[in-house]
């Protein structure tokens, strides 16, 4: 399980908070640890869909915190409680992590 996620539909807006599980090692951190900058690995892209529709899309760098927490909102008119929210991250090495929840 790569992401913890919670979503609440309130007054026509869906509020989402998520915490991705990832070490987010920077190039500098990798160099210090193993001497090889290429050992750096961090999330480079995060996207979320609700009922298949894209509701969040962010390209990221090594400068998000370790186990990054992020919050976003999207218009709730087209969705209802119980709809499925799916979040996926992809990291520099091509690995992916996902999390899902139902809108509450």
């Amino acid at each position, binding site marked *: 399980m790569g992401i913890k996620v919670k979503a*609440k539909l309130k007054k026509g807006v869906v509020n989402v*908070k998520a915490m991705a599980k990832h070490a987010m090692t920077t190039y500098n951190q990798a160099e210090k640890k193993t001497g090889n900058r290429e050992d750096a690995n961090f999330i480079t892209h995060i996207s979320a869909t609700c009922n298949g529709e894209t509701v969040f899309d962010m390209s990221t760098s090594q400068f998000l915190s370790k186990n990054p927490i992020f919050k976003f909102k999207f218009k709730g008119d087209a969705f209802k409680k119980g709809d499925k929210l799916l979040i996926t991250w992809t990291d520099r090495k091509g690995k992916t992590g996902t999390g899902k929840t139902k809108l509450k």
Partner: protein
Amino acid sequence: MIKKLVINTLLLLTLQLTLQARDINIDFLVQKAQKEHKHLFVWLHKDGCGYCENMREFTLQNDVVKAYISKHFIYQHINVSKGDDVIYKGLTTKAKKFAQKIGYDFYPTSLFFDEDAEIVYVSVGFMDGRKLSHEEKFYKILHFIDSDSYKKMDFDEYQFETDEEL
């Protein structure tokens, strides 16, 4: 009346003297905490440190925080500027050496122990009780320990799970 005053003063002086030259037995305090279904919270500080004084005044003496600490923790402060001996895991060292040994020679620092005398959480540095975010965070740290959540998750996860604001 004067007799009472003299006796009280003498008692206070005696107490003061015994307090000044004492051992701080963390092993014993951990056991005491376990018996009382509490956790041990050790607060490291030193003389001449404004951050320590402010944290004591504005965070530790904050009504809400203070009440929670006395209810759920055995609290022990250690002033590393004093020559007190600290007994930890059977070994006796001077307070300052103890702090250096566990790797936290920075003040103030809050240490939390479990029933096996293991340090399960450390909060390094000044938490300013005058700032709402600091007060809330400190309170959250206390809850994190008291609820035994540290046994199942790290503090980041705990904050995420308990953050009411969605």
